[in-house]
């Protein structure tokens, strides 16, 4: 028995070492940094311990702005992208001709570089000396005035960011949902059809429960992904996100470490811990809510 468990630990050793060095240790270190006040990188000294870093971060207007942006992004993009993906997947599964072509088209954004996509969005939305951007041309054509989506009002900027995020995260969801839909046994639908079930009722009473584990997986990973948003905002608004008022929590952490206002690892750590707490809470709530409505089949 003794020998056996020794062997087991030996097998686990590489993973434990690796995860310990690069995941567990930094995680603990972040907590430690977050309570060390006035930590200095160069001298590796700090003036005391306490919760001052947290109270600073929570009072920092940039952080509050980032918090607001991130929450808006999460609340808007997760439901919209999941709902749209479900709609598209159901559509894809109910057509036969050209299905593969459309599947490929819908999956394209997934394999496209974030920054390249960002550039395309800038062409669509950015106002330059030569043009107001493609979308504004359309708006003008319909008789509406130009809107500056990149440097203009907050709502316009938020709209572009949400649109961008939704567009980027949808391919993966569509892919997963189409395969989940395909795995539902056709005889259930046949049985329902013979019993005179309406299409809507089939969708809500049969299809949705049967793909519910996949949906929950997508919603939870969707929430986590949206809370960690950063590169999307950079792609659209450049690196000085605080100035644009479009920073996210992860962006704030990065800026505190390396940005213009960089060199504050303690504040960065405190913000990171706060993000961690938020994501953990939301995920727990998600799991609790979904436990009632999700059906797992063997």
């Amino acid at each position: 028995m003794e020998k056996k468990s020794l062997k087991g630990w030996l097998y686990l050793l590489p993973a434990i070492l690796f995860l310990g060095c690069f995941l567990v240790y930094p995680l603990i270190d972040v907590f430690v940094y977050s309570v060390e006040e006035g930590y200095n990188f160069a001298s590796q000294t700090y003036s005391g311990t306490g919760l001052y870093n947290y109270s600073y971060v929570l009072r920092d207007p940039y952080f509050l702005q980032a918090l607001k942006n991130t929450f808006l992004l999460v609340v808007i993009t997760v439901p919209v992208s999941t709902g749209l993906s479900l709609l598209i997947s159901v559509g894809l599964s109910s057509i036969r001709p050209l299905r593969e072509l459309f599947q490929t088209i819908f999956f394209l954004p997934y394999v496209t570089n974030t920054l390249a996509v960002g550039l395309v969005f800038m062409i669509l939305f950015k106002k330059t000396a030569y043009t107001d951007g493609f979308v504004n041309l359309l708006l003008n054509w319909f008789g509406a005035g130009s809107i500056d989506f990149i440097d203009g009002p907050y709502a316009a900027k938020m709209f572009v960011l949400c649109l961008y995020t939704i567009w980027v995260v949808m391919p993966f969801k569509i892919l997963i949902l189409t395969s989940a839909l395909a795995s539902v046994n056709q005889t259930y639908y046949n049985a329902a059809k013979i019993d005179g079930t309406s299409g809507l009722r089939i969708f809500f009473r049969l299809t949705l429960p049967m793909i519910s584990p996949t949906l929950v997986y997508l919603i939870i990973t969707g929430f986590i992904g949206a809370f960690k948003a950063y590169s999307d905002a950079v792609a659209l608004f450049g690196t000085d996100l605080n100035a644009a008022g479009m920073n996210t929590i992860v962006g704030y952490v990065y800026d505190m470490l390396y940005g213009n206002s960089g060199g504050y690892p303690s504040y960065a750590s405190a913000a990171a811990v706060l993000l961690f707490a938020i994501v953990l809470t939301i995920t727990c709530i998600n799991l609790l809510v979904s436990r009632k409505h999700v059906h797992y089949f063997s």
Partner: protein
Amino acid sequence: MKVTLQNLTKKFPGRGRKAAGEVTAVNHFDFEIPDGKLVGLLGPSGCGKSTALNLLCGLLKPTEGRIFFGDEDVTDLPPEKREVGMVFQNYALYPHLTVRQNILFPLQNRKGADRLTKAQMEQKADEAARLVQIDGLMDRKPAELSGGQQQRVAIARALVKMPRILLMDEPLSNLDARLRLQTREEIRRIQRETGITTVFVTHDQEEAMSISDIIIVMKDGEIQQIGQPQEVYDAPCNLFVAKFLGNPPINTFAGSVKDGRLFIGDCAVSEVKGIPDEEVTVGVRPEGFLPTPQGAFVCSLDRVEVMGRDISVICTHPACDSPVIRAIVNGESQVEPGSGTVRFDLKPSKVFVFRKDTGERIC
């Protein structure tokens, strides 16, 4: 409800670029199922039984022909308008719903004036559950039931809306041997009690023969014979039907007709009148052998298997199409295992003569 099929045909297009190999799964079906009967659709796998069933329930559209329920032409009606109940081979019980919710499901689909009150629905569901004897399991999920219980739930779900006809696709194939016997009696009982015209598909001849009022024997999309099980067994119309029905199967021999007498090998086994001289295939049911000391049909005795009431005589004959002949004879018959040969008289009603090329029965 009487069901009439007129010239019903279903062709499936071939696969691939040239679309070659069109398959005719159901070929010109023309028959009538009288009201309240239990009909067994019987044939080897791939013969088009399930296609025929799917045409009846409307999941498939026929290439040609019409289907009538009573006097109503339902050919162009979608499945939901046909008011049929269907029991699928894998039962297709909704796994996330309880037994009660599964049985209620078809009732909850109704709209407008047809819609029952909650209490009426519950009552109907309870009735259906009692009929198939699962009223104690109403709050379980399908995964918590045995195969036989799931089968009953599937039948209850199909019956709860009082369908015009009930269709069952291989209803017993997922059950073990003991349960199969029990369940087929159950299906018979339920069908009798409800009086709903029922069509069930099976590849098991014993299953079909034992509970059907009428059996329909199919092969390669074509109907071979329709009739009461005993009729079809006693008077098969061709070699295929003769071979497909009966367990142990019929023994077949290369034979010939000469001067009004039927020969198997060199043995003149019986008189046949009015048939020209030709080479034929002779089929003899296992119970058609009568061991007699002076019998005309001489075989080499291989062994004797005692089965209690009957004994099974295993012997060989050079003209036989299979390696051994299996004869079921009365347990009191005198068969000497040591003698090496055994002589039989053949019961005329158990001997069938088929045309050698087409397999069509001559007498």
